[in-house]
């Protein structure tokens, strides 16, 4: 009874192409068809786990009616015999912008021009132009026939589409690739909510950096919670409203690197959101971290082309990392599968969609199982988008979205014959194409030629043999007709033939080069020769290792903790013991275990320190290495955090290590009076970004004064403040507001549970919270400063709000107010000898450090520069040269003193029993220009060893040579190549916005 009802129902509505259009006007007689097809004798892959042999698929209208073996086909069905053919659920791409308009991207423009402090979006939308959660792909979606055709040819039947515009990108739609009707193609209007670290078309100044993107998304989460808790709303904000509405949808976060995958996941964790994360296909570089996110991934197969390395000079431009990625990218999906990560596969990032299946096959050749590949393209995306009741497998009641192939989908020779979308067929390669492969005797006007036809039915190629030479022929075959032309002699014209199939061959008419009409025949003489060695990847390909980090100087594995006994060295303790001659130091369990003479330890590796110097590791109070971005540009950027964007692959980290540096404060830049929060890191080269951080370290923040924050280098700047007096007001305002903020929360928190039910919970504000941390002595300021007036000013502001400025950094006129600084108790971290590159450093002198030090100010020498940062010992030596500072005091300026400023002196900064084994062994006096670090040790692990470095350089050169040879081979065998583009990262300084403004 129930069945009959369904039958009746479908009958009424069938003639699928008409049913959705019932409300539409008609300009014809009614053409309603049953749309009933039976596909018989096929191998049907119902889902990745289930394959039925010799099975039948029945569809009716846009739905699947039945799938199974031994089905009898009811009357009235058109029968399509698929003997020898395969049927698969059609593929799903869950990361496209199909059917949506192009995004006009806003170009980053550094700090030139007038700043745009407000959103340009008209209407009641979010305060930030990059928050576009109000956007709905469904509103704009319209069929794009050309793209649909390309996608269908690669086996896709439905896609998820969203607009790649903004940090919050609004909802995505799930659509099929039918070419007929927008209304039927749009299967689920709101299928997802989408996010990214790319501000897209937004022209608003803030945010410009990855850390700003993260801060704004965090703040928007909080704003939405606050906004949504109020009824009526405090004001209209269509973007927040939409944000709130779309939280229950699948949440998709688009990223472009493995490090951004980790950043997106961490952002989600804070708000209890598990994003589905679109990666860049480089997850293999750090697969264990990717696995630890528990995120389901969307992964592209956009493998890079080989680089053109013919010219050795040009080849030098290509980094080992890029070469290795070329080799290892096809192993990425296998790594994901092996690690049990749920993933779907996307065409995103491919130069052309037609590369999709060939690239996927490469992944399979590199270890991806066919089942996993199919899952990633059918059931997984369907489940992730919660639309697996309609697509992804071939089950009763689901959409009739399937493909018919000549063989197993991922076999190289397999072709897709037809792609059915919602019960309608799109032909790709004829199902019934005749196989003409074989050899033939061509008889043309009495002359005999041998014709060889190779390739698959439907895509044959032909060659004609004249004597012993083989000539390519232009040939076109259909089941019934043939066109064939070739040049029997190199010089001279072509013979052109047209004909029709006849028995095992053809006959027809043709024209010789001179225009004479002739008759011809082609009679089959045998099978085409099967080529030897055509099987690709027959022998196992040799692949390089993943290295940590994935950079030329990466290690095959991370250094292990060692017990090291350094014998007979000159030890600069930085303690009351001073400099100890002929002394042994034992490093054990990551700590400095013993200091003395004639030490022994049976388990220790002994390092001869004779003639060498052992010092505490260098600490750089002001550095910008190891971060993906440095400046955001809100006047108060207290909400952005360098710790969100640490870059584990920054080569300057290794270079600094080689200069004896063990730890740095990665500071935000100096473009704002209130900059972002710092990250304190140890240079654990090869570790993941999170593992670089010094656990338990106090929080710091960058402030900045003077020319940079008043944007002196930009005559068009309109941003407040433009003067030093305005800068002061920014601070007073920020701290005053923080107090108000605290009062608001205190008032709320003191309410009874009952009162809270009716009260409005105050809005969380990340910038205010940061200011409050400063006031409550939970976060400490390192303030970029140059001239004495502004130095004095900030100390007065701090006095007014009852806190202490922790450090003035750069502080080039500190010597003019050293007495006031000593009184305030602020530390100074300065350049040794930089001056005169801008007006506010006109009166900088190389005696600054010594004067401040002698006035009782805790003084350090910093770098703000990746080059200088790797020889800070030499910068310290300049105070000896210029001002006669004692050598011990000078060395402390780059070791113990910065440790104190960063509140790390409990564990670092001197050679003292119990402190962390963060030490450097030098071949010479550490303040000499001739001194080199031989070992840089962090946590008792040797992260830099000068001998190992020399060996690794050889390994690096060999690995480059191997890959260059492999790329040459690839080019020779016809693979496309790309030009080496000499990629290099930015060297950040304080003042860099997008890295284009270079000043300090």
């Amino acid at each position, binding site marked *: 009874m129930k069945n009959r009802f369904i039958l009746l129902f479908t009958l009424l509505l069938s003639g699928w192409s008409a049913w959705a259009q019932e409300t539409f006007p008609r300009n014809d007689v009614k053409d309603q068809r049953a749309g009933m097809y039976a596909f018989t004798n096929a191998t049907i892959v119902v889902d990745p786990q289930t394959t039925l042999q010799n099975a039948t698929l029945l569809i009716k209208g846009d739905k699947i009616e039945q799938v199974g073996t031994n089905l009898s086909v009811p009357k009235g069905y058109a029968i399509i015999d698929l003997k020898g053919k395969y049927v698969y659920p059609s593929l799903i791409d869950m990361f496209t912008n199909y059917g949506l308009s192009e995004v006009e991207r806003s170009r980053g423009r550094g700090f030139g021009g007038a700043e745009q402090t407000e959103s340009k979006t008209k209407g009641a939308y979010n305060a930030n132009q990059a928050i576009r959660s109000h956007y709905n792909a469904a509103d704009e979606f319209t069929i794009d026939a050309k793209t649909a055709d390309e996608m269908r040819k690669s086996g896709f039947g439905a896609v998820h589409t969203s607009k790649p515009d903004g940090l919050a990108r609004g909802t995505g739609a799930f659509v099929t690739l039918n070419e007929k009707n927008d209304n039927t193609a749009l299967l689920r209007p709101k299928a997802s909510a989408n996010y990214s670290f790319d501000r897209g078309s937004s022209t608003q100044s803030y945010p410009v950096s990855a850390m700003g993107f993260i801060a704004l998304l965090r703040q928007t989460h909080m704003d939405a919670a606050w906004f949504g808790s109020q009824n009526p709303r405090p004001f209209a904000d269509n973007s927040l409203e939409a944000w709130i509405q779309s939280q229950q949808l699948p949440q998709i976060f688009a990223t472009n690197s493995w490090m951004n995958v980790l950043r997106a996941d961490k952002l989600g964790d804070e708000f209890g959101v598990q994003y589905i994360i679109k990666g860049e296909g480089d997850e293999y570089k750090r697969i264990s971290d990717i696995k630890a996110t528990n995120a389901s991934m969307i992964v592209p197969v956009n493998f890079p082309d080989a680089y053109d390395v013919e010219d050795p000079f040009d080849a030098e431009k290509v980094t080992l990392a890029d070469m290795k990625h070329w080799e290892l990218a096809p192993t990425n999906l296998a790594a994901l599968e092996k690690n049990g990560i749920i993933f779907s596969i996307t065409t995103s990032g491919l130069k052309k969609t037609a590369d999709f299946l060939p690239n996927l096959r490469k992944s399979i050749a590199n270890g991806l199982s066919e089942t996993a590949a199919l899952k990633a393209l059918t059931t997984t995306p369907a489940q992730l988008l919660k639309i697996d009741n309609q697509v992804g497998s071939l089950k009763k009641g689901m959409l009739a979205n399937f493909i018919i192939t000549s063989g197993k989908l991922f076999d190289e020779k397999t072709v897709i014959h037809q792609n059915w979308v919602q019960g309608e067929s799109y032909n790709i390669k004829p199902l019934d194409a005749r196989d003409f492969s074989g050899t033939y005797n061509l008889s043309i006007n009495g002359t005999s030629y041998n014709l060889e036809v190779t390739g698959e039915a439907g895509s044959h190629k032909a060659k004609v043999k004249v004597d012993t030479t083989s000539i390519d022929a232009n040939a076109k075959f259909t089941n019934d007709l043939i066109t064939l032309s070739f040049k029997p002699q190199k010089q001279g014209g072509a013979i052109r033939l047209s004909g029709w199939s006849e028995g095992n061959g053809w006959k027809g008419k043709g024209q010789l080069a001179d225009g004479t009409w002739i008759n011809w025949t082609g009679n089959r003489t045998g099978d085409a020769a099967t080529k030897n060695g055509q099987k690709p990847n027959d022998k196992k390909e040799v692949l390089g290792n993943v290295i940590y980090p994935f950079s030329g100087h990466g290690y095959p594995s991370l250094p292990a903790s060692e017990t090291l006994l350094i014998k007979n060295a000159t030890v600069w303790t930085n303690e009351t013991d001073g400099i100890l001659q002929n002394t042994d130091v034992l490093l054990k369990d990551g700590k400095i275990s013993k200091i003395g003479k004639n030490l022994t330890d049976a388990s220790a590796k002994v390092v001869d320190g004779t003639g060498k110097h052992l010092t505490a590791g260098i600490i750089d109070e002001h550095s910008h290495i190891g971060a993906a971005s440095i400046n955001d540009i809100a006047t108060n950027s207290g909400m952005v955090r360098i710790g969100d964007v640490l870059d584990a692959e920054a080569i300057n980290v290794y270079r600094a290590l080689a200069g004896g540096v063990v730890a740095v404060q990665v500071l935000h830049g100096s473009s704002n009076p209130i900059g972002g929060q710092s990250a304190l890191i140890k240079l654990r080269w090869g570790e993941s970004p999170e593992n670089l951080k010094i656990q338990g370290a106090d929080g710091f923040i960058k402030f900045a004064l003077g020319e940079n924050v008043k944007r002196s280098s930009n005559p068009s700047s309109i941003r407040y403040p433009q003067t030093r007096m305005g800068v002061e007001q920014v601070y007073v305002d920020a701290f005053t507001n923080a107090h108000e903020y605290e009062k608001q929360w205190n008032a709320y928190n003191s309410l009874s549970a009952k009162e809270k039910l009716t009260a409005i919970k105050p809005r969380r504000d990340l910038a205010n919270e940061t200011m409050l941390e400063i006031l409550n002595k939970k976060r400490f300021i390192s303030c970029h400063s140059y001239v004495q007036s502004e130095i004095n000013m900030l100390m007065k502001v701090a006095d007014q709000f009852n806190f202490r400025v922790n450090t003035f950094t750069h502080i080039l006129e500190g010597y003019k107010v*050293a007495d006031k600084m000593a009184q305030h108790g602020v530390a100074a971290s300065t350049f040794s000898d930089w001056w005169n590159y801008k007006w506010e450093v006109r009166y900088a002198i190389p005696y600054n450090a010594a004067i401040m030090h002698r006035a009782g100010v805790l003084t350090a020498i910093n770098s703000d520069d990746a080059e200088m940062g790797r020889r800070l010992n030499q910068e310290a030596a300049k105070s000896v040269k210029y001002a006669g500072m004692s050598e011990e005091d000078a060395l402390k300026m780059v070791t113990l003193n910065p440790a104190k400023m960063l509140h790390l002196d409990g564990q670092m900064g001197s050679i003292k029993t119990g402190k962390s084994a963060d030490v450097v062994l030098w071949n010479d006096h550490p303040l000499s220009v001739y001194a080199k670090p031989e070992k840089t040790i962090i946590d008792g692990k040797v992260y830099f060893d000068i001998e190992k470095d020399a060996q690794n350089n050889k390994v690096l050169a060999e690995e480059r040579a191997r890959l260059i040879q492999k790329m040459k081979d690839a080019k020779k065998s016809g693979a496309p190549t790309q*030009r080496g583009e000499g990629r*290099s990262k930015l060297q950040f300084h304080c003042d860099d916005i997008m890295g*284009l403004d270079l000043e300090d």
Partner: protein
Amino acid sequence: MKKTKYIILAMLLMANMAWAQKPVPAPAQTKPVALTGGTAHIGNGQVIENALITFEKGKITNVANAATVKMDLNGYEVINISGKHVYPGFILANSQVGLEEVSSIRAMSDSREEGEMNPNVRAVISYNADSEFPPSFRFNGVLLAETTPRGGTISGSSSLMEMEGWNWEDALHTADIGIHMTWPAIARRQFDFSTFSFSESPNKDYDKQVTQVENFFMDAAAYGKQSNKVANLKMDAMQGLFDGTKTLFIHADNPKEIVSSIRSAQRSGVKRITLISGSGALWVAEFLKENKIPVLLPATHNLPDREDDDIDMPYKLPHLMTQAGVMVSLYNNDSMHGSRNLGFYAGTAAAYGMSKEDALKTITSNTAIALGVDKSVGTLEVGKDATLFVSEGDALDYRTNVLSHAFIRGKHITLPGNQQELYERYSKKYGQMK
């Protein structure tokens, strides 16, 4: 009336300050000077212990081992420098000294003239003798510097300046020593926001730009042979290149640019060529050696060009180039304030492969040869300028580069400058100075 008095007082005070901050240029040498007992680093690789060095009227008259020569030093100003070291003045090549002061302020920059082909503009004309930089340079031993225009393809003519003088004429050592040319770049570097990194793409105009340069040189060479010529300032300025009185300084980084530019200059008849380059020169060291092209390399205190490069590549580049048979010297490619560290750039080269005396050559004799001024400066040799200094110890190391005396053409110059004055003033303020 009272008011005026105060104003005059204030003005006097200000004048006094200005006087105190900048050392007064020294008068010409009137009395012969003898430096005795020091270790002389000649600048050509030689070292003389217990040296006797004399100079008169600005020229060196004796350089010898005191143990082997007897000399009557009556009438000499004798300075005993036992335990100290004496060096030829360091020479800073390819600098914008006197042309650019505070680099971030447009009004304070005088180094880039409008246009592509400017051989006729002369840096010496812009040279600001009151720049704050020279006192800071010479404090560490840099006594000579090339002042060099930049920008365009042919930037203009450079001159060798002494780091002392009342005005540019006074400070001039040799006018118009050469012409600086930046060879067109094969590749252009641009920032890619999608990857947040720089990448290079081929310069599509490269061939066109090269043709323009080559035509310019061809025309200049022909101009010199024309008897009835239409006067042309640019062509006139180029002539010294073809008779060997001026050096052509070619700026080129890429190995292919290096070969193409040098071949091109040679074809047009340029007699003296110096290359200003970087690590790219290493790839074509053989070519540079065979063509006897001196090479100016950037400061050793630089980062490697490429991620995969040996991390110490800039440090050891002077050594590697020297080993390959190329004569190299060092200049400062970064912000000008760093030029006072020239000695330490050489010190770093010594730490990474070179001998200390070879490293010294990279900022003295080799530089003089590269600039075409080796007849008068670059070494402590008889007949050359008495432009030299005395250091407490090894002048290439921070710990010992402490100058006690410096002479420029025999003039005993004052070393402390503005910065030392400020040091003194504030040390006194805090009672730090006894």
